[in-house]
C-alpha cells in the first residue's frame, strides 16, 4: 500500500492503495465517483475514459502510480468546462443515450476531440471515437451531437 495525492476534478484527494491499482478502481471504489464505468478492463471499449492531464485516458489500464501530478477530470465535472457543457447539452438535444452505460466514456472522448478540433469532419469523428464502443449502436446520434456541439461552440 502507498499514499497518493491526486488532483481530481479540481480537488486534492488522498488515497491509500496498492500502487498497481488501476485508476478506475481508485475513482470508483475509493473516491466513489461512479460515473466512470468499467466495461472491458483492457482498454478496448472506452467506457472508462477520463481526462488525465487533458488527454482522454483509459483509466482501467493506468495504474494509479503512473498518474503523478497530472489533473484528473471525470464525467462528474466535465460539465464545468465550456466544451464539456456544450457536449452534454448536445447529447440531451439529440437524445443520444439508449442504455447509457458507455456514454460517460463517449462524452469524455468527444470533449477531447472538440478541444483539439473545433470543426471535426466525419473522418475525425470516426477516428477519434473509434475506440469507444456502444452496444446500443448510438453511433449516428453521437456523430450528430458532436457536430451540434461544434456548432454551439462556434
Amino acid at each position, binding site marked *: 500500500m502507498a499514499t497518493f495525492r491526486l488532483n481530481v476534478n479540481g480537488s486534492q484527494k488522498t488515497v491509500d492503495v496498492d500502487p498497481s491499482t488501476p485508476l478506475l478502481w481508485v475513482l470508483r471504489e475509493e473516491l466513489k465517483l461512479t460515473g466512470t464505468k468499467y466495461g472491458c478492463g483492457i482498454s478496448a471499449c472506452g467506457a472508462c475514459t477520463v481526462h488525465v492531464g487533458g488527454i*482522454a*485516458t483509459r483509466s482501467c489500464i493506468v495504474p494509479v502510480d503512473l498518474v503523478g501530478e497530472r489533473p484528473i477530470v471525470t464525467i462528474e465535472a466535465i460539465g464545468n468546462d465550456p466544451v464539456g457543457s456544450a457536449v452534454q447539452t448536445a447529447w440531451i438535444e439529440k437524445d443520444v443515450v439508449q442504455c447509457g452505460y458507455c456514454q460517460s466514456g463517449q462524452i469524455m*472522448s468527444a470533449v477531447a476531440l472538440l478541444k483539439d478540433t473545433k470543426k471535426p469532419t466525419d473522418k475525425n469523428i470516426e*477516428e477519434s471515437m473509434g*475506440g469507444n464502443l456502444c452496444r446500443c449502436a448510438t453511433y449516428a446520434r453521437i456523430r450528430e451531437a458532436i457536430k451540434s456541439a461544434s456548432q454551439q461552440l462556434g
Partner: protein
Amino acid sequence: MSNRSQTCGVFAVVTFLAIWISISMSQAARPSLESQAGLAAWEKVYSVLISPRCINCHTATNYPQQGDDRHRHFANVVRGPEGKGVAGLNCVSCHQERNADSTGAPGGHNWHLAPLSMQWQDLNDQLLSSATVCRAVTDRSKNDNLDGAGLLKHHTEEQLVLWAWNPGRRPDGSLRTTPPISHQEFVAATRTWVDAGTPCPKGR
C-alpha cells in the same frame, strides 16, 4: 628487333594488362574486409529492426501492430497526423511513461509510431528486405537527418529503442519477447556497421 621478339613483347603487355584488369575487377566486385564486417554487422542490426518489438510501430499502414504475430492494434487505433494517434484516442491514452505490468499495458517515454519514411514493411504487412531497410535507414532525407554517429546514438540511447529490451508483461502476466540479440550486441553491431561506413547489401 625480330618479329618474334615483338610478338613476345606484345603478348607480355597484353597478359599483364589482362591480369591487372582481372585483379582490379575482382577487388571492385568484392567488398573490402572492413565492408564485409560492416555488412555482417548490419544483418545483426536488421535482425533487431524486424523483431516485433521494433517493427510493430514501423508500419506502412494507418495503424500500428501488436503482439509477436504482428496483428493490427486493437481498439481501432490509428496513426494520426504526427504518429501519436488522434484526439480522443492518442497513443498515450493507454501507453504511459513506463510499463504498467499490473494491467499489461506497455509504456515508455513519448510512445508513438515511426514516421512513414521509416516503414520497414509493406502495405500487406510483409517485411521489407535487408537492402531496402538499410537504404531507408541511411537516407538522411528519411531518417531525421541522422548520420552514422546519429544512428549509433539513436540505437544506444533512444528511450523507445531501449524499451524493446524491457517490454514488460502482457495482460496475462507473461513476459513479452525481446529482440534476438542483447542491446549491448545491438549497439556493438551498429558501431561496427557505422565504422565501416554504413554499407548496405546490394539488390532490392
